[in-house]
């Protein structure tokens, strides 16, 4: 293996693991304080939203609220399906079907 690449991979691995274990290291001695649990209650909602919304509204890197944005349309349909059925597989299959059909129609 190329030495330069090996060093880069090891550096990246160390940096990434540091971000993953950081919270445990910080709180390992004192234990997790009560306020932390209360404040972190909404982390999943916040992270999931922050991951989803830009992928639907800015699929090409710029804000696209037009009907040509197949991700936005598929996202709305998927959100509605998820809300009504709570069925993950159905939501994905329907959403991807919409994307594939729309992409064919647009291009």
């Amino acid at each position, binding site marked *: *293996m*190329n030495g*330069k690449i*090996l060093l*880069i*991979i*090891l*550096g*990246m*691995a*160390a*940096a*990434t*693991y540091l*971000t*993953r*274990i*950081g*919270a*445990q290291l910080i*709180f*390992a001695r004192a234990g*997790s304080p009560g306020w*932390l*649990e209360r*404040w*972190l*209650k*909404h*982390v*999943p*909602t*916040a*992270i*999931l*939203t*922050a*991951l*989803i*919304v*830009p*992928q*639907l*509204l*800015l699929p090409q890197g710029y*804000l696209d609220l037009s009907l040509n944005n*197949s*991700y936005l349309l*598929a*996202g709305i349909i*998927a959100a509605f399906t*998820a809300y009504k059925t*709570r069925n*993950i*597989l159905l*939501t*994905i299959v329907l*959403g*991807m079907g919409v994307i*594939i059909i729309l992409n064919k129609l647009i291009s």
Partner: protein
Amino acid sequence: MEKKETRQQQQTGIWWEVLQDCLPMCAGYIPFGLTCGIMGRTAGLSTFEITFMSAAVYAGASQFIALGMLASGTAGWGLIVLTTLLVNLRHLLMGAYMVPHHLKLPRPLGYYLAFGLTDESYALVASRSDRKGYDALYNWGVNTLLYLIWILATFLGALFYQSIPDPLEWGIDFALPATFLTLLIPRLTNGTALVVALVAALCAVLGALYLPGSWYIIVAAVAATLVGGMMERSNTHER
């Protein structure tokens, strides 16, 4: 004897849960892993090198960025490692959410479970914890299964990189946002959660427009979590 059987049944039940919950995530993981393998070969890495990267780093977005930097040939060790650190800072927040659970486990197990922390494993484990309570075996199963799939997909992508058409063009990159949607929607059951989601959405869009890289995820998540925390506190004061 009977007690032992119920515990075994419980464990089997958890394994089924792991498989069931990971299946939709695979629809997103496999194409991204394949793409990672293809990109690695395109950037000049060998099949072994890119597979080793997936096994050691195990963080898709930062791997894509690093491969892009490697391919352009302009970035050195320091810049690539620093960028990786910044792109993955969001793990700190997800890790903090896991801390109350992980600190109750034997330390090595906590460290192992931290290694498998990704957007996807976090989304599954956090959702299950809020629904049915945290379970270390579930956490372990999800982490390990997704990790193995990521490595295998990278390896296959690198091996067959000349004969696979770009998987991200199949529209399959919608699989992950769709999966996340099914995990997000059931959480939006009260006013506080809706406000948190709205703040996160607004900050994420503004951040994606005006901030470099993936800073928008951290900025939006921190802002929305703070708003949620403040609303929780004023709610308890009222009572």
